[in-house]
């Protein structure tokens, strides 16, 4: 499988989107080369606006643009988009329910060497708590690009999370269709369901293969839309497999695990084991080593699944 970062899908997706939405405007905060809006900027320089290192103002500017009916994306690292600009996103974008799309790259621990100040493991929790907000976390390059393109006719504030690290492309671009709010069953299974999101989907798929060899039939579901979450697919999994494991490159507080847990608790209580960053800060190091260290890898998913099933 070819490896490519989801942020590349973001940049390419913006170019594809501009073809169907000529009113598109893209904002960045001095990180175009890293967020990959540079790809868009090269093709559409007159539609790309650098706001400088001023994320709060950028989000407000995006809100103002959206009031005039144009489609606008505001880009930065997850830390500065969801973190620094949180209150502007809440009060200037979500409260007036404006059609602003936030492209947040370099999410999670896989930022790597930059260390804890840049490894945002709290953005999903922050964003999903705000009324009117949609939260999308694509798993590979193809899904990322398709998700951005799907914004052509998806109204409302949307937070889109992308990664820095190149990860396997497992979707087929020629056939893949992105549907907001729909979980995707990648592999059916009856013993346990593993819900994964973002970069963890590929790890979960690898884990499923290893589990299969050990006689465990795991269902693998990709939750690319964390809000609104696909309640039906969760309830069905809870009823049919009885045990659930969630895997995300995000804090175990408030992310995918919490979102899945909320549904399970209300509709069909079964054990939910949450794999994620366990309420700690990260530190510098190569992304892949960090993912291993924090247990966000196929090996640990296998180990946790076996332990959960008592095998």
């Amino acid at each position, binding site marked *: 499988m070819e490896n490519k970062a989801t942020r590349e899908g973001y940049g390419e997706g913006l170019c594809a989107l501009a073809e169907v939405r000529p009113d598109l405007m893209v904002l960045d905060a001095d990180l175009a080369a890293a967020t990959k809006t540079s790809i868009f900027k090269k093709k559409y320089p007159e539609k790309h606006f650098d706001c*400088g290192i001023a994320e709060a*103002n950028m989000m407000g*500017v995006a809100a*103002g643009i959206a*009031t*005039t009916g144009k489609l606008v994306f505001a880009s930065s690292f997850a830390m500065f988009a969801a973190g620094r600009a949180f209150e*502007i996103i809440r*009060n200037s974008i979500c409260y*007036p329910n404006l059609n602003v799309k936030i492209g947040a790259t370099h999410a999670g621990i896989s930022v790597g060497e930059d260390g804890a100040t840049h490894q945002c493991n709290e953005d999903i929790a922050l964003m999903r708590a705000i009324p009117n907000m949609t939260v999308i976390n694509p798993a590979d390059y193809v899904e990322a690009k398709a998700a951005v393109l799907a914004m052509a006719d998806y109204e409302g504030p949307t937070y889109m999370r992308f990664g820095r690290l190149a990860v396997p492309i497992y979707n087929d671009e020629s056939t893949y269709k992105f549907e907001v709010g729909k979980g995707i069953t990648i592999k059916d299974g009856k013993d346990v369901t593993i819900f994964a999101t973002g970069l963890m989907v590929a790890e979960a798929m690898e884990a499923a293969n290893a589990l299969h060899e050990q006689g465990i039939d795991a269902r693998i579901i990709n939750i690319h839309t964390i809000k609104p979450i696909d309640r039906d697919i969760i309830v069905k999994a809870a009823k049919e497999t009885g045990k659930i494991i969630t895997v995300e490159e995000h804090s175990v507080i408030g992310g995918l695990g919490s979102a899945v847990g909320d549904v399970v608790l209300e509709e069909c209580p079964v054990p939910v084991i949450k794999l994620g960053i366990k309420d700690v800060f990260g530190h510098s190091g190569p992304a892949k080593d960090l993912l291993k260290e924090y247990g966000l890898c196929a090996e640990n998913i296998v180990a946790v699944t076996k332990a959960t099933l008592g095998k």
Partner: protein
Amino acid sequence: MDKTIEKQLMIDAAKVRIGIIEGIHEAKAGHPGGSLSCADLLTYLYTHRINVDPQNPDDPNRDRLVMSKGHGAPALYAALALRGFFPMEEMKTLRKIGSRLQGHPDIKTPGVDMSTGSLGQGISAACGMALSAKVSCDPYKVYAVLGDGEIQEGEVWEAAMFASHYQLDNLVAIIDNNGLQIDGKVSEVMSPYPIDEKFEAFGWHVININGHDFGEMEKAFNEAETVIQKPTVIVMRSTKGKGVSYMENVVDWHGKAPNDEQYETAISELKAYLAELEK
């Protein structure tokens, strides 16, 4: 300015002030001081400057006004009522359950162009509107009203840099410099002075005026129309609580409602003043 026009503006502003006081008294909460200080400005803008149509509040070609100092909502609502967006009588629903007149401006209310209230944010949205107009060559203008305490927010200066960088000459910011904020004098809480020189250093065209002189107001906005490739800021010296004797320049009246007795005093003062003008 023509004396007849000026007199009509004074009459309209008095009606706006009565609306403000009635709304806040009825709500038993709100911000009279900073509403009264910008009542003249908003009356002038909505009767003489801003191109809006109450019958078509979402007209894409309308001028925009962002009430960045969102706690001045009663002044905005009363000015919108004066302009015909809704009846002045509706001021009495201010801050009540089910009312369109929320404690701070809500974009869903007819005539309100942006939800505001968290200080420092409105000016950024105004920049976005002005940039959008530039991109699609739309002729509309964008006005943003800020408090002098509000400009202590860092986001205001991010926006100031942005507006100047993108040469937003379709944007006019007005600083309601009434000199007071919740904790006291702005000069003592955290001095923003010199406001004019700061904006000048950020690349803005700056005009200083008396915020209760309609003639100066008209000259300033006419001058702003002639400025190219730069945003304009009008630093407007004003009196907090203007028009109600016991509220003028008293910090306590930043964010509390008059009781029944105080309300009677305020309303009779304003109504007597209005009657004098209408003689």
